[in-house]
């Protein structure tokens, strides 16, 4: 578990990740040990986006991003292909096909969401710019699911606060995320994605 403290000033220190002057100084307190990271604004955004505990600054994150972007493109292409190639799959619950859904715009039954999962996922991404529910859940929902949703919600808030350049808030949300991730780990659950 860690606690993050963030200060902002223009000392003469250089960013630990690039050559620009460091303007944000992030103190990570972990297992009683304090570790200070000096970063420029650009690198701080990336650093705070990564919620891994004590993730040391390196160039690795940018590489990861490059990979995931091309992966995402590949997935989108694949989704389009699936859509065109498999119009005959029909829902086990109500019998409608994805093609029929596309023509009327209404699904047949709750099970359609499972039957057409992959096609719907890309459709939902374009409608809602998101594919994961983080709101209210039925009363019988397990603690793990609730924690998972809370994490998803906090991650989207983290992203938004970094976009708004509110790094103090970002650091606070990042701590909350780490607390919940630690809870998940101690309850024997693998970190949810």
């Amino acid at each position, binding site marked *: 578990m860690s606690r993050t403290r963030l200060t902002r000033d223009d000392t003469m220190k250089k960013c630990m990740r690039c050559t620009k002057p460091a303007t944000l100084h992030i103190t990570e307190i972990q297992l009683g040990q304090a570790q200070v990271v000096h970063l420029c604004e650009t690198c701080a955004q990336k650093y705070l986006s990564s919620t891994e505990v004590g993730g040391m600054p390196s160039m690795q994150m940018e590489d990861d991003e490059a990979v995931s972007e091309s992966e995402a493109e590949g997935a989108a292409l694949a989704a389009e292909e699936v859509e065109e190639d498999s119009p005959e799959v029909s829902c086990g619950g109500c019998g409608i096909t994805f093609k029929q859904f596309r023509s009327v715009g209404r699904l*047949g039954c709750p099970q359609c969401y499972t039957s057409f999962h992959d096609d719907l996922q890309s459709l939902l991404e374009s409608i809602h710019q998101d*594919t994961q529910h983080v709101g209210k859940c039925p009363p019988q929902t397990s603690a793990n699911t609730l924690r998972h949703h809370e994490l998803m919600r906090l991650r*989207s808030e983290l992203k938004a606060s970094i976009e708004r350049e509110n790094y103090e808030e970002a650091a606070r949300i990042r701590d909350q995320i780490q607390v919940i991730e630690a809870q998940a780990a101690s309850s024997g659950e693998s970190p949810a994605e």
Partner: protein
Amino acid sequence: MLDFEALTKSSGEWLKGVGPESDVVVSSRIRLARNLDRFPFPPQTTDAIRGEVEAVLRGPVVEVLPPGSMGYVRVDPLETLDRQFLVERQLISREHSEAKGPRGAGIGPQESMSLMVNEEDHLRMQVLRSGLALDECWQEINRIDDELQQQVNFAFNEEFGYLTSCPTNVGTGMRVSVMLHLPALVMTKEIQKVFQSMHKMSLAVRGLYGEGSQAMGDFYQISNQMTLGKSEQQIIKSMQQVIPDVLEYERRTRREMVKENRSKLHDKVSRALGILQSARTITSEETMHLLSSLRLGINLGLIDGIEIPTINELFIHTQPAHLQKLSGTPMESSDRNAARASHIRLRLAPVEPTSEGA
């Protein structure tokens, strides 16, 4: 059973013209879409199954209606006129009125709540309040939803949330809308800028009766479009951050109009009142237009002696089905125009003609 006679003569809480920001905000509304987990969605099924769904939900719906509720009504056996009346009243949606097969609606106290069974989803629940009152709407509808979930299982999956007939509602199933009266922004054509900025924020702008309806009487509903990936509180919060800017924009424009040409504006709103008080026949469209000017005039203190709730009520009571219910007989369009004019004259019986206004 619903008492249409009493309904015709009254008006709902949300038209009272009170509540926060009521010079611009007419009402706040939150609706939730829910479905039973073991049944096909209403649009894609048979009347027999719609009947089963109605039978399963009717009991729980009646049970969760708060004390003082107006009761549960089966919508399918109603005459077209009565269904239209409920639509004008915003107690059921147009889709619900036009849907097929067994369906009904539970109506809460003072028309502030409506639980529609077998609309596009098995259950569409909405709570209405006058003025800007989204937190209150959420508390109430969330409580009703909690109570219902003690009795029935709603279709839900951990990835996509509450499952709905149309994927545009999946997740929270929540639509938050605020009805605004924006006459100054319409007159100055600044409203286009509001449309653009709402669009950028993925908020929808619609007319008085929701999707696809015309913006009658300068009324606009602003609502969220995205229902997945944000919590209910986040959706409400982002609306609460946006709305004050629109309100301020409308108020500023009103102030500028008064400052720049008070006598012209005073003339315009007074003429509107004059026509409404003396016309012998009037269309729905002209009525809406003139009532909107009148409402602006009252809010700016240019017209005395008429209350905002009277105007709000006239917006609803001058619509076709209301006029026919009030007169107790079906009427052709030309008869309705005469009945409308006479109803308005009665409700706006002149204040002292000596009043010079401000």
